[in-house]
Structure formats: C-alpha cells, structure tokens
C-alpha cells in the first residue's frame, strides 16, 4: 500500500498577486538526490539541501532580466546552466558568487531550455558557435507546452509537446544519431487541452502520462527501438489508453498534475479526493492496476498544479510554501492492496479484479458465488423489455424509491454478470449521490442487492458505508464489511464505534445475515456448565492462577462467582451486537493505519469490546471445534490480533480505569499461561528432536528382514 508521510517545508514562495502561478519555474536535482536547484520564475536560482531544509546558495540575475527556463546542473563539470531572457545562456559554478560575472553567451535564436523553436542542440555545440543559424522545426503557430529529457540506457531523448490550434503534438527527438519523430495526440473533448505531462522510461518504452481537465489520465507508450527514421513525414497518431478516470466533482480541473511514480502508481495533485467533497487541494496516490486510491493528503492553500518527484519525495508548491512529502510505493500485490490478508477460510471476493483481467484484458471468469438466491429467482421471473443502463441511471436521479428498486432489480437480473461490474459501479454511485442530496431518498434493499453482486468495492462508492451507518442500516454495513475488500481503517473504526454504542435493544431489531447469527447462537448456547478439559488444559486452572495474584477481596468475589458462573463465560453483549462485532473482526486491516483510529474509542467501549474478545477467546480455547464450523466466524488469530491492538492503543487509559483491572489481570493470566506452555514445550523440544533423529535412521541395524514389492 502506497503511503504519504508527514511533509515538511523547503521554502516559502512568492506567488503572483492573482495566485495564478506558484512562482516556481522548475526544480532540478543537483549533485545527488538530497540536493535540488529551485529556479523561481523571476530572477533567482537557489540551491537547497533537502534533508536539512537548508539553503546552500543563491544566485540572482540583474533587475530587468528574467530567467526563462529552470536551471540545470551538469554533474560532470559541476556547473549550473540557465537561460535568461530567452537568449542568454549563463554557466557558472558553485563558487561563483555573482551571476553577472559568470560566463554568458548570446545565441541567435530563442532558447527553450536547450532546444530552440523545436530544434535541439547540444550545449557544447551551441556554445562553440553561438551565432549559428537555428532551423525552424515547428510551424508558425505551434508553441511548445512542455519538455523533458529522458535517458534510456545509452540513448538520450528530448521529448516536448506542442500545441497548434487545439491540436497537440508530441515530438520525440533522439540524440546521436539525431532523429525526430512527431506524433499527434488524440483529441479529447474540443477546447480541452491537457493539463500536465509526465514521461518515464521502463522496459525499452517511453511511457507518457497526461491528464485532462475532465479527470481522464491517459497513457501512451512509445517504443524506443522501433523509432521510424523518416523525418518530416506526417505526424503519426499516438495511440493512448485510459489509465484512470479521476473523479472531478463539479466543473473541470484547472490546475492539476499527474505524475508517474512507478509502474503501478500515479501521483495526482489538484484533483478532489473521492470521499472528501469537491475541494481540489489534495495530493493523492492512485494504484492504476487496482484503480484504487492508495493515499491522500490535503494540502493547505492554493494548489498550482505543479508537482516534481525526486527519489521518493514529492515536491509540491501550495499556498505560500514549497512542501516536500516523502512517499512510498511498495510493489503492489493483491494482499497489500487489500490491507492485511483476509481470513483464509473465506474465498477471495470476486470483486477484486484479477491480475489477468487487468494485465491481459482477458474475460473474467464468471464467479459462481456471486448470485444470491434472490437475484436468481428474480432473474427467472423477470423478462420485461430491456432498459439500458443510461435509462436506469436517469431514473435513479428522479424516480421514487419503489420504482428505482424495481428497475434496478430488473436490470441486475437481466444483465450478464461478466459485464455487470462497470454498470454496478455507476448504479451505486448515482444512487449514492441521490441519497446524499436528497435525505428522504434511501433504498436499503437496492443497495444491499448491489453490494451482494460483489462487484462493488469501497473505492467505487466511498460514501456508502458511512451513509449506511448514518441511516442505522446495520445490515447493509454488515454486507459492506463482508464483501468490500478495501474498506479503509478509518471507516472500519467508525463502524466499530457505531456498533459498540448501539443499545442491545436496538440491535436485536436489526435483520442480519442468518449464517453469522447461527454461529453466535451456537457459541453462546454452548453452556457454561460444560467445562471440558482438552489436551490437559482447563480454563479453570488459569483462573486459579489469576486469583493468586489478586488481593484478598478479589479472591473472595472470584470464589463467589465461581460457584455461580464465571463472568467471562457470559457474553457481555447481545447476540446481534456480537454478530456485528464479529464482522469487524473479520475485515482486512493494517495495524499501522488502524491504530490511530482506535485511539478515538472511549474507555467504556474499549472495556466492553475487550470483554467480548475475552469471551470469544475463552470459548475458543475451550472448544476449538467452534472454528471448524464452516460458517463465517472470526479466527482465534484475528481475536488475538484485535486484543493486542486494543491494548496497544489504550493501555495507559486501561491501567487507570478501575473497572478494567480485573480484565487486564485476566488477560495477563492468559499471556502467562501461554508463556508457560511455550516454555514447557521448549523443555521437551530437544527430546522431540531426538525422536525425529531416531526416525531418520530407522534400520541401521546389522541385520533385518524386510519385505519389498516390485511392480
């Protein structure tokens, strides 16, 4: 799972009066990844050491002159190069203090970084004859929008894009031998031009990523080897593929930027966070394989749509500061995309796109577990004339609840499961926006049905779970927890909080999954009288242990309770509430992300939850056949993980809480019995190993009579 870490400020900015640009011309890497050269759009070039946030040097041109490209550092000659006033190349070293005294050369034509009007020159050859004629490569009205250079193994490339009357072109200039290839970019909607470009090189291909104001991120791949050499030929159309469709909220994006981080991750700035309303001041990392949002961060102040990245740090100007945000994109795997691996017993949810599907575009295997009984029956009975997805979507926007319910049901029963996935997402998000805008509109059964298709996930409709919580639709919550593979830890925690604070009376009214209820029923009904001794372990012995440590008062109460029924053997929460809590226990999570949210729980809730977990633990340790039951149930490992997490989050509070004292002592005794068991096992380890050794050389005797069989 990619993550954005706490950022820090590198320097302040002097933005324009109207805040249209950040005032930064460009940022380039200096001698190593820890040094950058920041060129501001007016007059100065500044050198920073990133990790120390320290300014190492600054150079300024005279008043009246302006820098027209970002300064670059030549690591071989240890020289800086910058262009001022489009014509003057300035070269200096770190020791030079005054820029005006440094070397300069005026060239005959406008300079765009190192290429001028589309012509590309090496700096050395240009400096050798500054006044050499520079040919015109671009058409009259063509202007350069963006440029970069890429080193691909031994080859160097200069890439730049141009615009001419709404058409966009990509130029790929290869140096040594010089070839120039012109590509035409496909037009997006008229009047829309791309907001940002980002190029990267991997596997002998240049990957070009560009973002349009409508939130579409496209990727074009150009092979480095198969470059056509014919020059001046017609611009080739450049094929593109839609990599991401980012939510744009209302209106188009204005200042936004997308940047490739690695093969599976894209950083996007200036695009709204899908679950945080329409504000555009977010920095997000998306996984393009899973189409999931991996990390997001709100940036204070205006976003200028500029973004740089050097060695796992994102440089982003916002408001009046230039911030550095370290990030991490670990290799994405299915397991990490889903947070902690789910319980092994449950089959992988079908809504997780398969690798084959994404990488090779193969048809997904129709999943067999998807259909619920309900959809199956409806599919048989319904055969109304077909309604297209668009019609259904329109309907959802206006029609009353009952009609929407009917239509969606009909649509789902007709649609083929294989191509259901995109439409289910659309249906869900339209339903969601309707429900959010219109508080009176809420269609729990439709939503439940959509969730049941297992084609949905949290990133598709990020508001669904919270909405269900708000509407106290715990059944839907349960379904979401069960079927969504990517519920964020914050939402899980919100559910936990909601579930644990529901009064038992209310909870009993809720309709829930029968499977999970039956599991809890068997668990609770397994009577407290039946105290089995398994493998020499009896839970009473552990209670005796704990009574040793407790004060005299405690011992008396303990003794009293033992005669009736030990409190740990009684389920501290009602049946339905327990079922809901079980669902929480079984969701996927990462400890690091869950822990901060867990801290929000109140101490009473924590104690209650811990009591429940203790109850589960005791039940499990009495009878491990419970887990083999076949129905959905949390595993012992999951229970223990949660106990540990809760204790981690709240230990200091719990120690101070008087009612938690008994509980903590009990848990302590669990741990002690475990430690004792392990140490006892450690004692017999060597003897067991001896047994193993003996088995290996079983017949090293001098003589034996054996029976063998040949076939």
């Amino acid at each position: 799972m990619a993550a954005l870490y706490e950022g820090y400020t590198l320097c302040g900015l002097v933005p324009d009066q109207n805040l249209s640009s950040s005032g930064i011309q460009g940022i380039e890497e200096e001698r190593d990844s820890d040094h950058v050269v920041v060129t501001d759009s007016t007059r100065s070039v500044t050198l920073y050491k990133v990790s120390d946030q320290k300014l190492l040097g600054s150079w300024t041109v005279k008043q009246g002159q302006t820098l027209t490209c970002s300064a670059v550092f030549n690591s071989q000659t240890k020289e800086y190069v910058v262009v001022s006033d489009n014509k003057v190349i300035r070269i200096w070293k770190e020791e030079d203090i005054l820029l005006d005294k440094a070397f300069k050369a005026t060239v005959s034509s406008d300079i765009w970084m190192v290429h001028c009007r589309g012509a590309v020159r090496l700096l050395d050859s240009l400096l050798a004859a500054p006044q050499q004629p520079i040919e015109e490569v671009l058409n009259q009205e063509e202007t350069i929008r963006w440029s970069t250079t890429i080193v691909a193994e031994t080859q160097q490339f200069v890439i730049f894009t141009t615009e001419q009357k709404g058409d966009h072109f990509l130029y790929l200039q290869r140096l040594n031998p010089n070839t120039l290839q012109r590509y035409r970019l496909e037009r997006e909607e008229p009047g829309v031009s791309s907001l940002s470009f980002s190029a990267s090189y991997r596997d002998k291909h240049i990957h070009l990523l560009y973002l349009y104001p409508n939130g579409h991120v496209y990727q074009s791949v150009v092979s480095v080897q198969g470059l056509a050499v014919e020059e001046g030929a017609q611009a080739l159309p450049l094929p593109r593929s839609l990599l991401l469709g980012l939510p744009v909220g209302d209106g188009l994006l204005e200042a936004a930027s997308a940047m490739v981080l690695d093969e599976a991750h894209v950083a996007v700035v200036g695009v709204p966070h899908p679950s945080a309303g329409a504000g555009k001041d977010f920095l997000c990392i998306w996984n393009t394989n899973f189409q999931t949002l991996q990390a997001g961060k709100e940036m204070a102040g205006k976003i200028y749509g500029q973004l740089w990245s050097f060695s796992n740090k994102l440089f982003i100007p916002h408001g009046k500061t230039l911030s550095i945000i370290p990030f991490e994109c670990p290799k994405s795997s299915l397991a990490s995309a889903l947070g902690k691996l789910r319980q092994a017993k449950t089959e992988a949810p079908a809504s997780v796109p398969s690798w084959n599907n994404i990488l090779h575009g193969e048809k997904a295997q129709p999943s067999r577990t998807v259909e619920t009984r309900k959809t199956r029956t409806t599919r048989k009975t319904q055969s109304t004339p077909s309604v297209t997805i668009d019609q259904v979507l329109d309907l959802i926007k206006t029609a009353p609840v009952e009609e929407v319910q009917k239509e969606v049901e009909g649509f789902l029963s007709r649609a083929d499961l294989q191509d259901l996935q995109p439409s289910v997402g659309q249906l869900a998000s339209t339903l969601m926006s309707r429900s959010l805008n219109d508080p009176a509109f809420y269609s729990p059964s439709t939503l439940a049905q959509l969730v049941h298709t297992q084609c949905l996930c949290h990133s598709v409709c990020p508001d669904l779970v919270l909405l269900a919580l708000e509407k106290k639709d715990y059944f839907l919550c349960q379904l979401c927890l069960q079927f969504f593979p990517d519920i964020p830890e914050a939402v899980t925690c919100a559910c936990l909080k909601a579930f644990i604070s529901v009064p038992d009376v209310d909870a009993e009214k809720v309709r829930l999954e029968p499977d999970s209820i039956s599991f809890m029923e068997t668990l609770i009904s397994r009577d407290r009288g039946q105290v089995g001794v398994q493998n020499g372990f009896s839970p009473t012995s552990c209670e005796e242990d704990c009574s040793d440590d407790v004060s005299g008062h405690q011992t008396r109460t303990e003794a009293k309770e033992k005669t009736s029924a030990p409190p740990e053997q009684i389920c501290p929460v009602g049946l339905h509430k327990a079922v809901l809590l079980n669902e929480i226990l079984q969701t996927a999570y990462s400890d690091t992300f869950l822990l901060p949210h867990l801290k929000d729980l109140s101490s009473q809730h924590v104690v209650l939850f811990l009591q429940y977990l203790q109850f589960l633990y005791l039940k499990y340790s009495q009878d491990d056949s419970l887990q083999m039951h076949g129905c959905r149930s949390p595993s012992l490992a999951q229970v223990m993980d949660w106990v540990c997490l809760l204790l981690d989050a709240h230990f200091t509070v719990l120690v101070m809480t008087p009612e938690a004292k008994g509980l903590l002592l009990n848990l302590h005794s669990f741990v002690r019995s475990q430690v004792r068991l392990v140490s006892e096992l450690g004692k017999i380890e060597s003897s067991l190993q001896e047994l193993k050794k003996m088995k290996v050389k079983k017949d090293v005797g001098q003589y034996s009579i054996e029976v063998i069989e040949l076939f």
Partner: protein
Amino acid sequence: MGEFKVHRVRFFDYMPSAIRAMAFNSRTERLAVARADGAVEIFNFSDNYYQEKVIPGRDGRAVEALCWVGQRLFSAGLNGEITEYDLENLKPQYVIEAYGGPIWTISCNNQGTHLAVSCEDGTVKLFEILKEKIQFQRNLDRQKSRIISLSWHPSGAQIAAGMMDMIRIFDTETGRATHRLLVERGVGASKSREVVVWSIAFLSNNTIVSGDSAGKVQIWDGLMGTLVRTHLVTKWDVLALAVSQDESSLIAGTSEGTIVQFQFLSSTVDRQDRDHEWVRTRTFKNHSHDVKALALTDTAVVSGGMDTQLVVHPLLDKVEKNTQEAAQRKIAFPHRSLVGCAKKAGLLLFQFPDHLELWRLGESDGNGKPGDSLTVKRKPEKLLQLKRKGEDHICCSALSPCGGWLVYSTVSSVRLYKLQHNNNISVNKVSKLPKELRSVHQLCFSADSSKLFASSSQSSVVVVALNQLECKYLQTLRHKSDSRQPIHLLSPSDDGKWLAAANTDCQIHVYNLHKMKLHCSVPVYSSCPTAVAIHPTTNNLISVHADQQIFEFSLQQKEYTEWSRKLQKQGLHGLWLKRDTPVTSVGFNPKNPTHIILNDTFMFCIIDQSLPLPESSTILYNQMTLRSLPAPERTRQSHAFKICKNFQHVLSMSLLDDLSLVVVERPLLDVMAQLPPPVRQKKFAT
C-alpha cells in the same frame, strides 16, 4: 510382479585397503593400483574402468611404487625387493632383492632399458631389463641420506633424485652427482625438521619439479641448478606428483586430500614459448585423507590414497561435455564378489584377505506387508572363522550350494574343507588335493555340489569331483583360442550340463560337462563380461558387460536369441547405460523363467523378458510411479526393467532357494568410520 522377503545383511565388515601407489600405462590404457596390503589391481580405462585383474597381497609385502615397462609391471617396496608380476596367472613372477635396504621408489627410463630404484642406504641402483628378468647393473654415487624419489630425464642421460633437504642430479653414464639443489625447510617449528622431497619430476626441457614435506611445489632449472619458482600449496605434505604426457600439465597430491593442478602457460598472451611458466590453475578435493598416488591421463586426474577410493576426475576442458567420459567416477568396492552364498542352506561366506567367515542367516516368523521390517526370530549366527595358512592373502573362495564344502585359494595353494552341521559345526580339511589344483584364481561348485571348478593357468578350467571326504581330478577344460588371459568368471548351469567361463580377453567359452569338452564360444564382444549365468530351463547364457550391455545367447542354437536381438536393435535405455558400476551378478527366478535378476552397487533389477522393453522416452526408474497407479493401469505402464534402489552399496545379491533375497550391503559411511582420523600421517623422518 511380486513380493520378496529380503535379508538385509550389513554385518560383513569388509574394509578396503588404502591405495599406496599407481601407474598408468597410456599405451594399453591400464591403470595398476597398489594397495597397502600389497595387492595390485589392474583397471582397464578403455573399458569403463573395469577392474580386470586382482593380484592378491602378501604379508610383509608393502608396495611403495609401481612401474610399467611396456606390458610388464614391476613393483618395489619397503621389504627391499623388486617384483615383476605375471599378469596372466595373477601372481608375482619373480622377486629380486636389491640389497639396499627398503626401496622407496622404482622408475623406468623412457627407452625401457633400465630400471632405477632408490634405496634407504642412499644409493640409486640401476637394473637392466632383460627379456625374462632384470639384472643389477650398477650403483650411482652413494649419498649420505635415503633417497625418496626418482625421476629419469626423458633422454635417459640424467636422473633427478629427491632426498632429505636436497635434490641430486646424477649423470647415468658416469654415475656421478652433477648438481645439488638445496630444498628449503618449512618455517616455524618445522624449521628444525628435515624436509623430505616426496616426489620429483624431470621434464624434457630440463625443468625439475619437486613436491616436499613443507607443502611446496618447486620448479627448478635442472641445467643451472637454480630455483625458478616456489608454490606453497598446503600446510602439510605434498606427497605425489604426476605430469601429463605432453608435459603441459602437472598435478600434486597433498595430505589434506586436495589435488592441485599446474599448467604450463604463457604469462602473456602473444609471446613465444620462452615465456611459458608453470601456473597454478585448479584444485580438486575428492579425498578426505592423504592423496598418495596420482596419475594424469590425457583426459582425467586419477587419484587414490588413504581413504581407499580410486577417483577418476575428468578434466572438463579435455572431454566432451555431458558424455560418460565427463562424469566423475569413484570406485569404492571391488568389481567382483567377496561373498559366497549357499542357496540351499542359507549360509553366507565372507572373504577377507586373511580369513573367511561363515554365517547362517537369521529367520523371521510370518509374513508382512511390503515396506515392513519383519521381527527377527532367530538372529544371524557366525558359524566359523577360518584363518588362512601361510603369508599369501586369500584370492578367491567358494561355498557349495548345500553348504557342505568350503574352498579357498591363495596364489600358492588351494584348501578344501568339508563342513558338517550338527548342533555345532565341524570342519575337516580334505588332505589330498590333486596337484592340478594349485595356481587358481576363481573357484566355484556345481549346483548339486558334486563338482568343483577352478580356473587355472592359461585360461584353463580344472574339474574335480567331490564325494565323501575325497576329491578326484576329472579333467582340465581348455578352449581353442590362443588367449592366455585368466578366467575371472565361472558359472555352471543348474542341470549340471554346462559351464560358462569368461576371461579378461572378453571371451566366453561354454563347456559341455557331460562330454567334458568345449561346446561353443560366444562371439567376442568388445567389452569385458562382468557377470555371466546360464538359465536353468532355457539354457540361454546371459552375459552382462562392463559397458552395461546385456546379451542372451542360446546354447542349443549357438546364436543370440530373439530377445537379445530385439534388445540390441532397440538399444538399452540411456539411464541404464549411464550407471557407473558394473553388474556383478546375474540370477534367475526358478518360479518365473522370464525373470532375470541383476545387481550392481546401487540397485538391483529384475528384467521381465515377457514385458516390452523401455523406450528411450519412458521413465526407466518407474517403480514409484507404478506403485501409485491402479492395477490395470500398472500393467499398461510397466516395462521390462524393474529397478529397485532401496539398497545401496551392495556387495552381493543372491536369490535363495526359498525365494528370499539376500542383499549384502556395506555402507560407505561405515567404511569411512573405520578410517584413521584425517590428519597428516607421519611417515618416516618427517
């Protein structure tokens, strides 16, 4: 296919003797190996390293060095004697006392005219090689200390001799020592100890290479008498050196068990020959103990030492990759059986160099499932330990199938015993043996125990009739070819009519015992037979050869059988041919005439002649697969070769008359455990 009850015997404490010296004859491709007990073995490198001949040792004969002169083989040892071997009768031909105390080495000049021996008394003695014997010629200048190593210059005009702390160069014409090269002692504590030049090589460009007890391999200029280069290769001793025939490569064996190779290479790429020097190139570690004997053939490093194994390590730049030749060979066990088995009586006879052991196999009660170990009701019992008489080691022995007769032979005599099993065993030596039974190298009894066959000199077989405490000479069977090579395999048929005899000239002769004359000779195959047997019912002769080929020859038709032709036409499976130990026994299952039972050191195999032969693409070792298949599928998948690898390091295997198998294993780990600890063996005066 069937179940077998297997007596798995591991109480045969066979201990091979350490390898002391070796000599390779590149013309005949024979390697002679001398062991610590004085035995000399001949391996045929052109025929899958088959151990053709074994000349038994003798108490007190410690062979220190071997030397081929043409086809003649000489040895010398610390008993002060020079021995020439009779390779046709597998015994020493004559022994000559050198009168110089213990002899450290023996070396022959390239011309094949003279032998030089180095003696404890400080002399190098030259012997002239005559047709039937050798004759002392003269001594070279006597030195003050013993002479450990010798090497002739290829011209024959000079001899380099390694001794304590120095190397001497002698002129063979005058007998004078011309140079004295001082060898530096080891550093530290060994500074006070004399350094021993264990091995020396004199090359045609007058370079002398020496290996010494300070762990150095030194290159000397023999003309000037100066040291050119020192390579310190070990902390311990460099015990042996061997130079390739073209003098481009040499190897040095050390006490650590490593072998270091040096090659004569030019130090710069494009210079002339003059700039060549000896460069240390490779190190091999195939031994756990001292490497005492080395030979460098055109393609391989051959080494042997204290750990008793003969290792052939191919030089991968000299052989074609992925061929049989490129595989490393470790020869740990003899290629002939040291175990006799009385099939009717369930007795085993173990042959050691100095005694015989007779054991009765144990018994189990009841039957068990395949894979079970049955409970042993009666433990195996050692009935007899028979010490040999005289100083010569036992070369062969046999036990009659009924268990009533026991015979063994040394190079000088044959002893026959009558055994009587009552409550305890009684042994009676048969006193008067016919005089024809004297020099014998293979013995066996007929199936009804009424006759004793002995292979004798000049490829003949002596037949002796046995009855109650008396034995009578019947006939000497001779074949018509002029081969005089010894017979190494004898196999009578069960019905007593036929006797097959194979010799190391690859011939197999079949005698009719009723008529007491030669019946026929099997067409000679290029590879030596390693096991032969005559089928009890069909009277077909099965022969298995050192190159792993199998032939079936019909004695009635005097031609190869249909099955044999089919096998040759289709060819044996590649994995079968890749096995690197020879088949040492062939047997038959009396209950199922289509079954042939074979074994080598690492497997036993039942060939079912009624089943299809395995194609090259089928899995040869398919027993595990077949086990997992249902019965009908199994019959479809099975092929003629049913190979069982449950037993490893098998010295002998036989099928008793009650259809149980006897497998005698000698795990290599048990052999290793009996070796002395792998530290430097202190030899004399180091």
